[in-house]
């Protein structure tokens, strides 16, 4: 007998794409069909998984592909330490381990018909990219989509091809920006920090839903702008990325107060965060 909760699925890398310096996207296919079925029975946007390389370890990050695309799982991660370096060193045709999905999800069924604004900075786009595609894959279910995405430099923007796709779609309003000094001569997007760009783009807030993900400093300055634009705190969502090991509420490191990010999160509303102690918001 082995400990079931730590049993990982074997996933084969079918596609690998470098997004930005040290940032990489992998498309993974379940080696075992039963694992795939089990995953997609449970998977909703916002959940995360533990990706691993035996001998190096496991690392928690989001699932970046939507449940509407059931053939694979995609993840986008930045190389920061031993585990992410090991995952990054894996090539197409090789395998990684995966267990999940874990955590809660964005309640997108309750957003039907409502306008949705996605706000992301840098490597904060992957966690909400699954939601973007989920929404776009279900035409007619949701209101207008606005995407505000910024990064430090042009090179740091992830999903460059998809940004082009979204920008070309009639049902999406895309605003891309880079921090002042991060632009290239042929940069066609905006130059400025995300809160500023968002304020400028001024999507209507009342009745709409906002998803914010990015570095803490960006979130900190974005929230007042959202409130100013008329978003209700209960309609502003973000996803927390605390250090995790077990993913199942036992190892004791991801909790903020009595809230376990791995179990009760990672998706929280601004309203919830306001009632959590020292959540760095």
């Amino acid at each position: 007998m082995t400990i079931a909760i730590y049993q990982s699925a074997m996933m084969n890398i079918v596609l690998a794409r470098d997004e930005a310096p040290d940032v990489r996207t992998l498309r993974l296919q379940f080696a075992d069909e039963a694992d795939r079925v089990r995953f997609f029975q449970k998977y909703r946007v916002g959940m995360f998984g533990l990706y691993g390389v035996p001998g190096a370890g496991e690392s928690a990050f989001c699932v970046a592909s939507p449940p509407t695309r059931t053939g694979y799982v995609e993840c986008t991660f930045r190389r920061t330490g031993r585990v992410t370096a090991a995952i990054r060193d894996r090539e197409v045709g090789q395998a990684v381990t995966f267990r999940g999905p874990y955590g809660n999800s964005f309640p997108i069924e309750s957003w039907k018909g409502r306008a949705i604004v996605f706000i992301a900075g840098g490597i904060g786009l992957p966690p909400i990219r699954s939601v973007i595609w989920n929404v776009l894959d279900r035409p007619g279910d949701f209101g207008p989509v606005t995407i505000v995405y910024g990064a430090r430099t042009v090179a740091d923007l992830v999903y460059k091809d998809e940004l082009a796709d979204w920008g070309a779609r009639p049902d999406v309003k895309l605003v891309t920006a880079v921090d002042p000094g991060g632009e290239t001569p042929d940069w066609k997007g905006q130059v400025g920090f995300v809160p500023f760009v968002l304020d400028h783009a001024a999507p209507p807030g009342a009745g709409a839903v906002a998803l914010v993900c990015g570095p803490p400093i960006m979130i900190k300055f974005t929230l007042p702008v959202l409130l100013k634009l008329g978003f209700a705190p209960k309609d502003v969502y973000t996803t927390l990325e605390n250090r995790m090991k077990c993913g199942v509420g036992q190892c004791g490191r991801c909790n903020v107060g009595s809230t376990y990010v791995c179990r009760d999160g990672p998706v929280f509303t601004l309203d919830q965060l306001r009632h959590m102690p020292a959540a760095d918001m």
Partner: protein
Amino acid sequence: MKILDADKLPDLAAVLAAAGYRVVAPVRDGAQVRMAEWKPGLAIDAGPIPANSVKEFLFPRCEVIARYSLDGDSFAPQPAPVDAPKTAVLAVRPCDAAAMVALDKVFNWEYRDDAWNARREATTLVALVCAAADDECFCTSVGGAPDARLGADAVLRCADGASKFILEALGEKGQALLAAAAGVLADGDARPDPPASVPVRFDSKAVTDWCGENFESPLWRDLGLACLGCGSCAYACPVCHCFDIQDEGTRSEAVRLRNWDTCGLALFTQHSGGHNPRPDQAARWRQRVMHKFRYFVERFGGLACTGCGRCARLCPARLAISQVCREIDEARKAAAK
């Protein structure tokens, strides 16, 4: 009534070992008495409170949770069997036995931990009613008692002026143990000695309430000064269960390990990017107290402290959670007046 002479604990251990139990009992090791696997010839010292808790026999400090064979860039999962030997723990303290019940909740919270459950199932806890307590004991402040039976499968109680033990089964596992030990047990009567008296040092409900309102109290800052940030308290605590998962391996094999860990260490929550949500020892001390007296209550309906006092006995800085709780309680009482 099943009776055992006070000096016959090794005989009990021997007969249980012969019956196929791994026997764990308090054994003297230098200056300490420690819960350890009993081997023939070892004396059993049920007097002092053991330095370690019984936790490590159900939740080992290091355990393989997954195993892979490696070949170049490819790998394949291999079985990682759970080691759950049939075990009898003799003279486990009531505070430790109660702690295992708290851990049952953690390890079955939505996700069931097979390893914990298998070992729990295979383990018979023979509690010892405490005949004496020291000034760090505070079980009565956290809902326990020196003669509490929560979590125990059988109970040993001193009798006739510490010359005998009365052994009583509390359930099927206890009865099975008694049956296995029949050879060394006598039928008879004995007068149970009174249990130790442990004064109530604080009102745990008051602490739980206070914690709900005092996340930013200056108390934490002062505690954080004295705390060295070692893991001693957590590793000795029967309820602390935080762990780390680490991979190790060679060219041909990798194992995924579950190792004890503690919220007292700075790196415990540090993100790979450098940010740390619990940036100083004050935040980490707060987490420890809050977890035991507030968060655990909110999530599992009970405290994550059974008052064994080991954390205080072993703390290099002699910090004591009971002292902190008493101060909180007193401060709260003072504020109420």
